[in-house]
């Protein structure tokens, strides 16, 4: 088996196998949608992101327990964010962090002119702290879902958390429901990376690619493949993200 195919296969196995049972379907993988989980619902979602630059470079995994608290509020616990890297000096699997995510829905994407939700995530690991704040906007036009996320990320790392970096991200996506079970669409991602929060060192990356989602009875799977269009050195040329979810 060719190397990238083999690594993608093992990455998929790592996500799918622990998820014996699992809902609230996602139409995108890099973009969040405005509606929140129904109150009392419990879901497990597993994420796998594989990156390629001249072949496989690394894979990222997240395992999320999502809880619907009220009609407009949901909370999630990411039990483990970990990665597998192929780099010679750091080869292998490493635990990265655990996270708490809160989403509050303000308006409905069908009944209101635009659906808005607010998102906050805090991640903490060994010598690592990250805050991610998002504005989620969505409009449903019949079977078409249009979604936009504006994200501000702040990261503190290393000893005494002395290294600090920032990132501003915009993501735009469209997903069309061709049938009640299948959706296809596209996602675009624009990242502005701010090392040490200095705009003079800012790095712009732009990714675009298709997505597809399938909803089963009580489970769903969504996959997006993005290609980098900016040619930034040190950033992945391609990345593929898969999310598999099941209602408990």
């Amino acid at each position, binding site marked *: 088996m060719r190397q990238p195919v083999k690594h993608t296969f093992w990455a998929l196995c790592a996500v799918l196998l622990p998820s014996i049972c699992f*809902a609230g379907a996602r139409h995108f993988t890099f973009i969040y949608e405005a*509606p929140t989980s*129904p109150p*009392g619902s419990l879901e497990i979602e597993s994420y796998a992101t594989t990156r390629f630059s001249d072949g496989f470079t690394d894979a990222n995994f997240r395992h999320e327990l999502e809880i619907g608290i009220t009609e407009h509020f949901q909370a999630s616990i990411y039990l483990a964010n970990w990665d597998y890297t192929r780099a010679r000096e750091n080869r292998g699997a490493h635990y990265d962090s655990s996270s708490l995510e809160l989403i509050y829905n303000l308006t409905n994407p069908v009944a209101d002119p635009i659906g808005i939700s607010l998102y906050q995530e805090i991640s903490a690991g060994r010598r690592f702290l990250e805050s991610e704040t998002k504005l989620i906007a969505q409009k449903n*036009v*019949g079977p078409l879902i249009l979604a936009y996320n504006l994200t501000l990320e702040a990261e503190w790392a290393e000893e005494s958390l002395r290294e600090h970096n920032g990132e501003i991200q915009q993501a735009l996506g469209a997903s069309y429901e061709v049938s009640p079970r299948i959706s296809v669409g596209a996602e675009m991602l624009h990242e502005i990376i701010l090392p040490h929060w200095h705009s003079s060192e800012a790095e712009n990356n732009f990714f675009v690619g298709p997505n597809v989602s399938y909803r089963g*009875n009580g489970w769903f799977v969504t996959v997006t493949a993005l290609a980098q269009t900016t*040619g930034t050195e040190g950033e992945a040329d391609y990345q593929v993200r898969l999310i598999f979810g099941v209602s408990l």
Partner: protein
Amino acid sequence: MNTGSCSRWVGCVVSTLVILFIASCANLAPPPEVSPVLISNARPDHVDAAQLQEGRRLFLAHCLECHTLPRVTKYNREQWPHLVSRMAGRANLSASDQKAITFYLRASSSTTIVPR
């Protein structure tokens, strides 16, 4: 990826979006508000305006979590109960929520008054 192929990619995505947007506008209207016609259609189910309103609210809030909302006239009065029941578990609907959504969809599935 070079600049030429990048522009072609973005162009393709944007054109597809525009076509899908135009096609989807046929279904732009949100689920109908509770009206005298709906109240009249709901009489065989012995449902009042407040219950229909609650059914509409729940339909908008819960069903969107997994899929876009179909046109309410896409299915008829007899088809809706089965469809709602099939998805109730996944949407975590209580028995009363399920009933409210079903009554609203049965009443709104026809825009004309249902003969009694």
